[in-house]
């Protein structure tokens, strides 16, 4: 079984459109949407929900006003500035519990926090594991780990060949959680200076965790000088450029219709994505 995670560093380079097309092209796979903050893959796959589960993670401090003597020790010791005027700001509270341990009158308790939901859905392309982190919640890395764990379980039970994960942007906690232990990272970039800068950082994360990487340049015809920069950078890093996909409005048109672009048209974009899947799946 091969686990392929699609990342980019920079957002909006085309990860989800490519994963949606891989869903249509790949045989014997399970799909995982690891962008739990702003999940979009379901918009291309018309899922029917099979299972919904709550995601309980972390804790939030809660002060019993009747017991509180307003001594202020909790406010002085909290390093996250989460207690002001003897009240807890749940958005700033990181759930460390320090305040609950030091309160001299035991006025502070820690409450479990419901931080979101995760789902298993059926799609015409196979199972999709996805999630929705609650608004302004923490622990996105743990929710990503949960999504991957269930995708892996489905892949093992059904002896599938691939887990295809749509990853989050950035290089922090949820990206590391999406990436660690995967078989391959496909890095989708675009020929802009920002795209190149962000590619360098996300490739650094792949190196740090020793995950093999391949690069795909999306909207390559936007700036061919930058394409050459990316190619020469990749060759110095010994990373293959697997595909160059042209800019084409058909990608947005397919998105508006809620279908993967390879099912919407058989033009150049679709041909390039098909070739890309062949290379990635080898």
């Amino acid at each position: 079984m091969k686990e392929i995670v699609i990342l980019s560093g920079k957002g909006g380079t085309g990860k989800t459109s490519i994963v949606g097309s891989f869903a249509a092209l790949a045989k014997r796979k399970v799909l995982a949407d690891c962008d739990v903050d702003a999940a979009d893959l379901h918009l291309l796959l018309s899922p029917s929900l099979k299972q919904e589960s709550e995601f309980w993670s972390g804790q939030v401090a809660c002060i019993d006003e009747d017991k509180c003597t307003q001594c202020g020790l909790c406010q002085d010791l909290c390093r996250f500035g989460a207690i002001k005027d003897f009240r807890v700001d749940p958005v700033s509270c990181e759930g460390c519990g320090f305040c609950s341990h030091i309160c001299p009158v035991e006025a502070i308790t820690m409450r479990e926090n419901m931080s979101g939901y995760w789902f298993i859905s059926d799609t015409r392309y196979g199972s999709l594991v996805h999630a929705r982190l609650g608004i302004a919640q923490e622990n996105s890395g743990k929710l990503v780990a949960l999504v991957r764990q269930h995708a892996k379980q489905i892949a093992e039970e059904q002896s599938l060949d691939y887990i295809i994960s749509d990853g989050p942007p950035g290089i922090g906690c949820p990206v590391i959680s999406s990436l660690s232990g995967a078989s391959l990272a496909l890095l989708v970039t675009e020929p802009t200076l920002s795209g190149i800068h962000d590619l360098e950082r996300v490739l650094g994360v792949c190196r740090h965790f020793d995950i093999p990487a391949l690069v795909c340049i999306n909207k390559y015809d936007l700036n061919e000088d930058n394409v050459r920069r990316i190619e020469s950078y990749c060759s110095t890093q010994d990373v293959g450029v697997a595909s160059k996909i042209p800019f084409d409005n058909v990608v947005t048109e397919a998105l508006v219709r809620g279908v993967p672009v390879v099912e919407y048209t058989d033009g150049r974009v679709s041909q390039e994505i098909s070739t890309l899947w062949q290379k990635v799946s080898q």
Partner: protein
Amino acid sequence: MIISIASGKGGTGKTLVATSLALSMKDADRVQLLDCDVEEPNDHVFLKPAITGSEAVSIAVPKVDEDRCTYCGKCAEVCAYNAIAVLGNHVLIFPQLCHGCGACSYLCPEEAISEESREMGIAEWGQSDGVSFVQGKLTVGEAMAPPIIRRVKEYANNDGTVIIDVPPGTSCPVVEAIKGSDFCILVTEPTPFGLNDLALAVETVRELHIPCGVVLNRTGIGDSKVEEYCQKEDIPILLTIPLDTEIARLYSQGIPLVEGLPQWKNSFLELFNRVKEIVDERNRDTQR
């Protein structure tokens, strides 16, 4: 006044809006740009600031004095992140999991735990053509962005206008970046992805009681559902930017929109004025 530029979905044009807004206003006001997208900071690509200073951003992680430690296990018991474990006569510390809350060192009955700093990134600052600039950079391989965002925001100069470039998403780094803003500009695109993630971003700013408005980028593609959503939710569309090959080309070369196409400067000044009107009106309402 603090204006944050956020989006939910990545790649919608936050950096374009943040840099062009800052450059448009620099003659009228003291303006500062804070790049809080510390995982992938890109404003510097456009502003090319002369960096004049930097500092390491660290958190305090525990260090155990084994001569004093009695292996009682109190530290492991109080750590909410499983960053410290006591196994027989060994204390294991996992610095990557530590949030630096300080509970273990404070609560150790033997005073055997001190703290040492662990670097997770940097904050750096400088000037670019009349714009005061600060950015944070998370070290590659590190997971926690919020401590770096907090540090960058400590440099905010509250006398003038502060523009904050926010990371994509809706979770803790976004909240850390937009917290305390007077207004949040949400940049989106007229596609189903743009709409889905805009709705999540709107929920996030409403949770924090921050007023918001939308900049709709790449109009001319997609559909009209974002406009319908904004009308239904009573969210003003403050500026629209068309899908345009010249704008995309400037962006790809790291040239700010208002430098490459100076006729856009007025649109960004109008954007600022509309934001200011909304904030002023809100402040008058709360004073009444």
